[in-house]
């Protein structure tokens, strides 16, 4: 399998706090990888470093075998790695369509034209097509502030996907979404990314969601990769259960209360 993203000895320190410690990861093309870990485990720091938002203290990041250390987020985006955010990052005072049109125009050229109208027939068709793909065409002309949280998450991901990236990093795609909506949202996202043949790495707290969609799990704890492998192996790992999923502790507590 071809490696698309590789990190070597990646470290990040914020003063005395170590947010990432010697992170070595290889992601292959076409994989759907879940990143799990408790709050402060270093998941978002990892995503922020890989997408250029944070500069690593040490280490190397290779995307398609090319170093992307020191590149700006926009340069990394243009090289084929897009991301969505834990809190959907949209243009609040604009309609859903305008949000997508901006994403389409941005994907077309890094230098926006001064007098060429943004609302061209081809761009609108592209935006409409992606709205249909994500199953949200009914929200097309609504201000993004007026759409439900789940739809906002989908728009955020749709905007990331519009530039036809090779790899998509989703930071907690179901955060803030109700339990009933989670599965429907993730079904939609995973169907669309599969159609676009995009490699996916997503951070998630909900283990049911992780189990359902990923082919591999990276478990983070205290800035380090605690386990890396198939979902059933990683989730059965005693350390992962103790420090990440809390399964072992919960199990112990249940046993203790039963004894009492």
């Amino acid at each position: 399998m071809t490696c698309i993203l590789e990190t070597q000895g990646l470290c990040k320190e914020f003063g005395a706090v170590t947010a990432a410690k010697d992170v070595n990861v290889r992601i292959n093309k076409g994989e759907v990888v879940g990143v799990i870990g408790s709050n402060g485990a270093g998941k978002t720091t990892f995503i922020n470093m890989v997408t250029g938002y944070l500069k690593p203290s040490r280490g190397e990041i290779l995307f398609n075998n090319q170093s992307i250390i020191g590149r700006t987020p926009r340069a990394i985006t243009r090289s084929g790695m897009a991301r969505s955010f834990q809190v959907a990052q949209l243009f609040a005072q604009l309609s859903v369509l305008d949000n997508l049109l901006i994403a389409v125009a941005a994907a077309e050229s890094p230098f926006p034209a001064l007098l060429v109208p943004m609302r061209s027939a081809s761009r609108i068709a592209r935006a409409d097509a992606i709205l249909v793909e994500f199953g949200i065409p009914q929200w097309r002309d609504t201000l993004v502030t007026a759409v439900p949280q789940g739809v906002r998450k989908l728009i955020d991901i749709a905007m990331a996907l519009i530039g036809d990236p090779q790899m998509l990093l989703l930071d907690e795609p179901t955060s803030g979404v109700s339990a009933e909506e989670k599965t429907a949202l993730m079904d939609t996202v995973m169907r669309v990314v599969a159609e676009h043949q995009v490699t996916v790495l997503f951070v998630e707290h909900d283990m049911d969601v992780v189990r359902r969609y990923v082919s591999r799990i990276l478990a983070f704890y205290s800035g380090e990769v605690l386990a890396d492998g198939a979902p059933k192996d990683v989730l059965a790992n005693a350390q992962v259960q103790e420090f990440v999923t809390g399964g072992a502790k919960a199990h112990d507590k249940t046993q203790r209360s039963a004894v009492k």
Partner: protein
Amino acid sequence: MRMDKTELILLAVAALLAAGGWIGPQWLVFLLTMALAKAMVVQGVVMQMRAGLVTFGQGLFFCVGGYAVGMSGHFLNITDLAVLLVIGVGVAVLLAMILGLLMTRYREIFFAMLSLAFSMILYGVLVKSSALGSTDGFNVKAWTLFGWSPAAGQGPLVLFMIIVASSTVLAVLLHRYGHSNAGMMCEAIRENEVRVEYLGQSPRWVLYMNYVAAAAVSALGGGFMALSAGHIDPEMAYWITSGEFVFIALLGGTAHVAAPFIAAIVFAVVRTYAIELVPHSWQMILGFTLLAIIVFLPKGLWSLFTGNARRAKA
């Protein structure tokens, strides 16, 4: 070139304005000429407001445009109006291209204060330059147009017609700019700069282009002001002048390209009558006017039109 409904309305209003100038008294022609020149500078302020930046130093480019026109006549003996305006805009664009490299690194109050600082530096330099008339400034030479000189008394009306035509072209261009990739990207930056970066665009580059374009537009207003008033002085770069442009921008709102023109005319009329009414405290009337606008029309005078349109739809 296909024109949309807004552009056709702009053309129609410009034709009415030109006709009004033709039959109106000379004082009205002068008042409207000055108001339209100021409106051009305000367009520069509004362009930056749409990108989420407030400038308290647009007087810099207003002054540069005016002084470039005045100095070209005074020192280079150039009197052709078109050439003078091109020089005014060109000098401002060059200056903006240099300052923009620094300015686009800053946002919010830091941008506002830095823009004010550059404007006040120019003011300080001009005040100390005796060759340029120091605080008194100097008179601008009478203009010609492609070898033709207006007869006595004809000049103000011809200049008015030229500024109406220029304002119309500018309004159409700015309307298109507002709906273009770059214009919409400015709005996107105002809303969420991080997202723009993660869409593969450089917010700084977009803001740089916008800054330079805003400087060009404001310098054109400065050039027209110099030609119309026939005099320039360092007050053009003073902070109160820049504040006046922000005042007019807030008065009109940022929702439409016509708003700064309407606001500049309303401002000129209110100020003229305020000075007539209470010569020593006319600023108080302007203050109350702005207060009323902020309280009752927070999105500026233009919201009167959009409010009516919404009610009509309902």
